[in-house]
């Protein structure tokens, strides 16, 4: 893609993170430009989750920097980064399970549309919150299930709900941690089409195991092995890269 003189939305520079002797993140530099989907792939244990946690604010890197919209994220927690526009979904759905699907999304609409330190007006009479949340549920095709508690939703529906919550935050970047996991072929296909359109709303950093989805969606791919980025490039470049073929893709790509 033509990046011209665009500034990256997310810029990760020379990031290091160790747990004892284990180098989970070893000099990682990745960036994300407006309008693109940058996929992050790598075998299990490559350090993808650790990297995601450093971007989201769960973990502080040992060294290196993360700039989001030109702002250094050092010292900012998860909530601060979310407020700045980082829309994250989890590998294993993380929802308020007692709340209905609607109320889960309403929480995000509420966070986006002002203070949570409002003590008197009942949320269930707040039309703006309800309608805003319903709109997001409709986008992920979950409107029929709005009043079902998250605990009673199917696995696939929970994944959709997570995306609806992220959408409601109107983020500047989507950080999607294995959104296809456990979705089934039909669900993956639908979600792939959905994410393809989503990139116009905000760029996506996509961690994914489903190679069909990655190859269909990604503008660029970075391959993480043992905490290091061994290659970054377009789908074709990554397919052809001999290092990647031996280290990761193995027999999968013919």
């Amino acid at each position, binding site marked *: 893609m033509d990046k011209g003189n665009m500034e990256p939305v997310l810029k990760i520079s020379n990031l290091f993170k160790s747990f004892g002797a284990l180098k989970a993140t070893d000099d990682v530099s990745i960036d994300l430009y407006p309008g693109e989907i940058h996929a992050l792939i790598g075998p299990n244990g490559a350090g993808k989750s650790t990297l995601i946690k450093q971007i989201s604010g769960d973990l502080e890197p040992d060294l290196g920097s993360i700039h989001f919209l030109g702002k250094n994220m050092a010292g900012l927690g998860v909530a601060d980064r*979310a407020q700045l526009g980082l829309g994250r979904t989890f590998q294993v759905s993380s929802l308020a399970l007692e709340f209905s699907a609607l109320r889960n999304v309403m929480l995000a609409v509420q966070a986006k549309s002002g203070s949570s330190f409002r003590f008197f007006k009942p949320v269930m009479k707040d039309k703006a919150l309800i309608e805003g949340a319903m709109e997001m549920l409709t986008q992920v095709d979950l409107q029929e299930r709005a009043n079902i508690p998250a605990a009673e939703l199917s696995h696939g529906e929970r994944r959709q709900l997570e995306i609806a919550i992220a959408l409601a935050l109107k983020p500047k970047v989507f950080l999607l941690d294995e959104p296809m996991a456990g979705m089934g072929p039909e669900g993956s296909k639908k979600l792939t089409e959905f994410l393809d359109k989503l990139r116009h709303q905000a760029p996506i950093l996509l961690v994914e195991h489903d190679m069909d989805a990655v190859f269909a969606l990604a503008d660029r791919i970075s391959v993480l092995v043992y905490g290091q980025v061994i290659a970054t490039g377009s789908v074709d470049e990554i397919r052809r890269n001999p290092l990647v073929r031996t280290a990761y893709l193995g027999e999968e790509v013919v």
Partner: protein
Amino acid sequence: MDKFDREKALNVLIALSLLIIPFIAIEMDEPFYVTLATRVVVFAIAGVGLNLALGLGGLISFGHAAFFGIGGYAAGILASHALNYEPLMTSLFELNGTTEMLIIWGVAVVASGLAALIIGLFSLRTSGVYFIMITLAFGQMIYYFAISWPAYGGEDGLSIYVRNKFPGVNTLDPINFFLICFTLLMLSILLISVLKNSRFGAALQAARQNDERLSTVGIHPFKIRLTTFVVSAMITGLAGALYADLNRFVSPSMLSWHTSGEIMVFVILGGVGRLFGPVVGAALFILFESIFGGLTEHWMLFLGLVLLAVVLFARGGLIGVIAGKTRHG
């Protein structure tokens, strides 16, 4: 009937029964029961306070006696200074005690809120069993401080010779004092009910269910919890001030961890997170105390059995048994 409506109907029934008991007692010439009913009401307010933190926020505070006691001492100290005509302080300007309940309540609420702010700043950085232990530790610190502070009675406590005043009401009439406390109980329950349904309440309940979810949408769980802890302490502190006036006596035992445990028992017996749970819990507690307390000093054993049964078989407490599970909209 819809389960949701059933709880509402039950709440109205509980409130009305509690309200008429003192009038029946007076009718039957048994004024002692008015005092007993007032005790239920005051304990219930303390429980309503804890229920905000424990029930809605999932904050298992084992230190709420601190706020109950601080509220009590605020009443005791202000009243004793006023009754002895000793100013609280004379340097800078003269500050006198007072026997006006409205002022005493204000001081009790602010003092317990401030204490909760400080305790919360430390304790809310932890969770689970550590949170329980830290709140317990802070509570015990304040308890030992009160014991070793001779100016206000130390271990012997502090007597208030005359019940404090409320504008336009003769507070010495037990029914009147009951009605004041009852009104405050209803107001505190109303406050919790409003909070529960608000944006703040939504964030608080989300914090209990899933901390990570809340921060990922950009809301700081810590700030939400700290606010909750302070409001919760303020309500319990108000109950402490009323308790001092009910007994016309304040003692360090109000601050002890037994009291924290008792307040927690009110909440759990009645139903954690249920609006009227603490009312039912406090009523049952007082009922057991007065029925079995006359027979044996080990009456808590019986209460313990009930508590065990509730925890094992009826997580929603007694309200849950009658009204069924809660529904979340």
